[in-house]
């Protein structure tokens, strides 16, 4: 596993902020024109920021099945993304229960987000997340049960 790298940490912050800006721009476009595809210039920017994981994320979005479980009163949300033989728990800004997140993102710092995190962000903006409201108690059980957080 990697040691601490202050330059990498600063780069990650920059990529995150640039990515946030791209997603915000895309959100505005989709709001004004639902069902629109991702414009080429935004796609290019996202590819520059997130590399090969972007293409993989788009495949995950196209495959469908991303679900947002939302606590009805609290609004707390946990995303579930189907993967290879498993369903991953995703907090899009900072965690995924997949192995790639542990080893490539946290361990090696090879990227800022795994494909599942990116897929959730893309799917959210493109309105391709299935929303599943539940009680707040059920949400807590869902976070702990069903394998918990990974």
């Amino acid at each position: 596993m990697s040691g601490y790298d202050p330059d990498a940490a600063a780069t990650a912050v920059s990529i995150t902020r640039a990515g946030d800006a791209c997603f915000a721009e895309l959100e505005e476009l989709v709001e004004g024109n639902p069902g629109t595809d991702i414009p080429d210039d935004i796609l290019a920017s996202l590819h520059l920021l997130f590399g090969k994981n972007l293409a993989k994320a788009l495949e995950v979005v196209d495959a469908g099945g991303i679900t947002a479980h939302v606590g009805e009163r609290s609004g707390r949300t946990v995303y579930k993304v189907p993967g290879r033989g498993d369903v991953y728990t995703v907090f899009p800004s900072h965690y995924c229960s997949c192995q790639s997140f542990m080893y490539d993102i946290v361990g090696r710092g090879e990227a800022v987000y795994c494909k599942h995190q990116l897929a959730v962000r893309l799917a959210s903006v493109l309105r391709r997340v299935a929303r599943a409201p539940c009680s707040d108690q059920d949400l807590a059980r869902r976070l702990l049960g069903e394998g918990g957080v990974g």
Partner: protein
Amino acid sequence: MAPADLNPLHGLLSGMEVEPGVGAALERLPDVTSVDTMLCGATASGRSSLALHFALHHAATANRPVMFLCRQDGLEGSMPLLPRLCASDNPCLHLLQLKYVRSYLDIQRFAACMHLLQTPLAALVVEDLSSLLRIDDRNTLVRTLAMLLEGVRSYRAASGCECPLLVTDSTDESRRPRYIFDRWFPLTLAISAAAGPSGTEGQAFVLSVGGPLASTTQASGAQSRPHEGAEGPVSVQPAGQSAGVTYRLVDDHFVLERVHEAGRGVAARQAGAREGTHGAAAAPVQLFL
């Protein structure tokens, strides 16, 4: 609801007696602002006591409960010190909600249920993470931190409370997986033994400011500036020697002896000169509210 004090140094230092001459220097400490802070320090470094002072500072400031998660045997085996001039019947102590946890599973359960909390919390403290899980179990550490931070952030969004989070850890610096902690904590404060002789009053410790944003290289002479991090404004500190303070345990409380500005230090006076000087010089500044 009044905004929370997001400078963790205020809470951590709130229970100390301040040496005469050091009070003014305190204002030159970096204005660090972070809702999520890591405090690292070995056993017997005053870490638990500072965490308690942090909790009581926020409880007193906000007049709202603070939740303090810790192992019962850890707390009872080594009772943390109350802040200076805080009597055992201080009403703020009633705002401290102790929640005993046995392992990382209890932390995960608490985090999963945070959105169910009805009480608006002033702050949340998780004391000594390494007593709750094996630090070398990276998977469990990552999952637990992710759950905890996600839980706290969801709670903040739902409740409107800023609820600063302080997580402490006693892992030795050489074994601490800094790259994991820095992913979730933009600010890390570290306690280390101060160099030099112990003196008659015991070992001195240095509380210094660190973390990923504290290491960002700044232009020469740049002051700390706020900028938008992933979870809100975070102050960025100049590179170079870490800022911090030196404190020492005297009788039943901590005495803040020295302030280190980034790049240089400001000493109150030599340690030997303060022997028998209680009340002889100007009254020390009391920070505890």
